[in-house]
């Protein structure tokens, strides 16, 4: 699969590394060049410095041929906008968007975006761990 990832933080870098190891074609975008240091030396994908809500940057990263787009920056709104650009303008088949704010996540899930909320997931894990004792 062709995978475009926006945001090379801990999650973005780890996800990119996993998919690259499994033989997929990975492109990863981040505003900050230093972020790519999180990728291992043997990472075989492509890296792009730029703003993920800029269509030209997305095109350079190969979004027109992408099967998957994952928006994983630490800005909820940036992820939301980039994910909608991927879906509505580039018609990427699978678009996944991380949203930390549970309320915003709920709204965009209802609008049909595939979203996940680490805040919700984390709180749930804590809740279950405490109750399991």
């Amino acid at each position: 699969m062709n995978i475009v990832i926006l945001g090379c933080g801990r999650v973005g870098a780890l996800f990119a590394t996993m998919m690259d190891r499994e033989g997929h074609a990975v492109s990863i975008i981040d505003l900050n060049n230093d972020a790519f240091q999180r990728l291992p030396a043997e990472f075989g994908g492509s890296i792009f410095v730029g703003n993920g809500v800029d269509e030209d940057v997305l095109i350079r990263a190969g979004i027109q041929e992408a099967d998957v787009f994952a928006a994983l920056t630490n800005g909820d709104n940036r992820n939301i906008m980039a994910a909608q650009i991927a879906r509505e303008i580039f018609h990427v088949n699978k678009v996944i968007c991380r949203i930390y704010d549970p309320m915003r996540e709920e709204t965009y899930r209802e609008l049909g975006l595939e979203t996940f909320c680490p805040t919700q997931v984390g709180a749930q894990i804590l809740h279950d761990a405490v109750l399991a004792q």
Partner: protein
Amino acid sequence: MYIIVGGGGDIGYYVTKSLFAQGHEVLLIEKGGSRYQSLRDELGQSVVRGDACEARTMDEVGANRADVVIAVTGEDEDNMVICQMAKKRYKVARTIARLNNPKHEEIFKKAGIDTLVSPTKSILSLIESDLPSTRFVPLLTLKNAGLEVIELRVPAESDAVGKALGELKLPPACNIALIIRDQSQEFVFPAAETVFLPNDDVFALVSRESEAELRSAFGATE
């Protein structure tokens, strides 16, 4: 009307003041601490500290009874989310967003935002439509060939009016490709005997060096 303004920069501040003066109920939301304080000192209760993207803030200000939400922060992604949340979560009838990057127009429209205001685009179109009788607009640059595609309007008082294309002294690296008549809106692919009329819109290919010469041939000053 009850109007919520997201983003207390210069635009947000003046919009709030003007709407307030017109007798509307206006609430300005600003998240930055020191900026909030100075707005609060001047506008008092009409300013709320918070994030217009956050449901918590929007619940507090009663967004569900707002008639209009205006998003004028300096970040397009924030303006987009403010308007989409207002529409989807609070069923606000009318949302207006400031568009910072004109390239985001398409996605903003697809996002269902009712009205887009693009200062960048407004300034560009003002420049293009300024002095309409002597309009000279570069439409397209063919970089490698060093050519420009331009549009100019023949001023009524131009020396070219009433003359045929063959009679005009035009620069060599130039081709008049198309004329659109002002009155009839007919198009003409000009030949040497085609006569220019007042307010003709002329589309031409011209080398960058010959642009000024072409302009003066039609009396279209910059």
